[in-house]
């Protein structure tokens, strides 16, 4: 492939997944992520992979469960209402400790909502999404290049911790076109001695299952899983700080909201207001450290979100409510403009 290619975010996800060795994609079309499926439909047959448009989202996520059990890199993608349908299957993946990649290109809701961008599945993604005690690793790209890189990262982390990783994007990230450099290295997938690949009569058979008959054992499994989550928190938390060293006002924003906010921070700096940005890249685990640190010198956090205020709760928790946290938002498919964010910064500076 050429040095750079012009891709939609959705296409970048699909091509990066192929680059990461994913040869199994199961999905069901829904705007604004349909290009992931369309791209896979075109590419997979040419590289000996499997593209399957399932009869429903529920079928697709259970096919993911099957391939993950066999130890192969596998993914599905959807948008908000479709992710809700997959919720049960995602919980089963967690219960069986299976690595998989789920992509959510969010649209406005609740219900059928609309087809324009949104970040209103933050709670759903970071708290698990389906039933039961579990987490997914949630990655929030903020450019088409990151859509590709986070997809690869998602596969790697999923394998490393036997967890589901989610790329949480939104309609703008999925639809926008930007030049992408896909010439980066991808480490080969690790060995998966737990996978159900056939014993060849040489070992005890492996079992993949999320059902436990003995409550004492189920408790142990849950505790062990959360010990693993602690490792993820310690090792894999990612964030970007922008002009935070001397900041008086800190914006918290991820994905498309972070891009808008960066413009607003630059504009505020031109006006002599010391604004900065903390951009969580992993939404779970949430990057507590930069917020805790910033709370010692900023006088206000502004959480910029495309929802009615969801990440704001994590900002409050991480900063231990030491300084006020306010919300700057648009919903229903709308995006805060750089002017709106700037206004919020100016107001906070007074």
């Amino acid at each position, binding site marked *: 492939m*050429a040095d750079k290619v012009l891709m939609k975010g959705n296409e970048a996800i699909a091509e990066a997944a192929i680059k990461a060795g994913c040869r199994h994609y199961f999905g069901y079309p829904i705007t604004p992520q349909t290009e992931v499926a369309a791209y896979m439909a075109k590419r997979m047959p040419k590289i000996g992979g499997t593209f399957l448009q399932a009869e429903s989202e529920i079928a697709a996520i259970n096919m993911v469960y099957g391939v993950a059990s066999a130890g192969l890199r596998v993914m599905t993608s959807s948008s908000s209402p479709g992710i809700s349908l997959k919720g049960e299957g995602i919980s089963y993946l967690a219960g069986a400790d299976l690595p998989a990649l789920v992509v959510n290109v969010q649209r406005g809701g609740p219900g059928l909502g609309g087809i324009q961008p949104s970040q209103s599945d933050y709670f759903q993604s970071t708290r698990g999404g389906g039933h039961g005690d579990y987490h997914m690793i949630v990655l929030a790209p903020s450019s088409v290049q990151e859509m590709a890189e986070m997809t690869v990262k998602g596969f790697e982390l999923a394998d490393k911790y036997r967890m589901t990783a989610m790329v949480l994007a939104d309609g703008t990230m999925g639809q926008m076109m930007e030049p992408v450099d896909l010439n980066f290295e991808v480490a080969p997938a690790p060995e998966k001695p737990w996978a159900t690949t056939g014993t060849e009569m040489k070992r005890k058979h492996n079992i993949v299952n999320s059902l436990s008959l003995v409550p004492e054992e189920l408790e142990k499994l849950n505790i062990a899983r959360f010990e693993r989550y602690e490792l993820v928190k310690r090792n894999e938390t990612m964030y970007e700080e922008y002009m935070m060293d001397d900041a008086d006002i800190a914006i918290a924003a991820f994905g498309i909201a972070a891009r808008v906010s960066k413009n607003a921070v630059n504009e505020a700096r031109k006006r002599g207001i010391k604004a900065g940005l903390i951009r969580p890249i992993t939404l779970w685990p949430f990057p507590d450290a930069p917020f805790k640190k910033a709370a010692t010198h900023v006088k206000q956090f502004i959480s910029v979100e495309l929802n009615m205020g969801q990440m704001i709760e994590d900002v409050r928790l991480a900063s231990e409510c030491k300084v006020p946290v306010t919300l700057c938002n648009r919903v229903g498919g709308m995006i805060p403009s750089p002017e709106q964010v700037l206004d919020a910064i100016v107001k906070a500076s007074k």
Partner: protein
Amino acid sequence: MVENNSAFRIPHSALRRVTLIVGHYGSGKTNIAVNLAVAARREHERVAIADLDIVNPYFRTKDSLDLLREKDVRLIVSEYANTNLDIPALPQDMYAVTDDRGLTCILDIGGDDRGALVLGRLRPAILEENDYEMWLVINKYRPLTATPADAIEVLREIEAAANMRCTGIVNNSNLGRETTVADVLASIPYAEEVSALSGLPIVLTTAEETVAKELDGKVKDLFPLALQKNFIERKIQ
């Protein structure tokens, strides 16, 4: 001199009555169709652009509504374009394209073969009148049309779905707003090979206006483009 390099000027002979713009998903058809329609209005009294995209609910000719109104170009578009109603709706006045033969029409067709299926309805009248061109838009920097062979595959799929043959190629190779003069020049051998493999002439090579100024004299049939802002760009810039 500057005038010749600015947007909305077609570098060669007048357009046919109907120009169909087809191509791969995301190849730049809508941008080109809007620019062609505005350019056509310089030479023709009555010009329309028909948005017949049944594939993508975003990035529609409607994004350029203000420009089209200002330039007095009629927009034939479904009332549901750019709304939350995600259905493959066609405009109620789409038959003006074939019924009103005094109208110079640019047809913006949806991506790939799926988008070209829409031509089934219009094909008999277009062929019968026989005053049309069907131009394939190609972009070397799009991953699924990065090689001439891939571009030819898309061409054949579109022709099969439309049941019509393309008559020319528009080389719209670009990397979005990062496109350089070198990027455009590097795409020329690619476009020439697509042309050789298909037997179709390269009718236009496009470049964004400022890039086009630097390409003056270096590229044949250069068509400078005023890039249209889509809904994302209008929302976040």
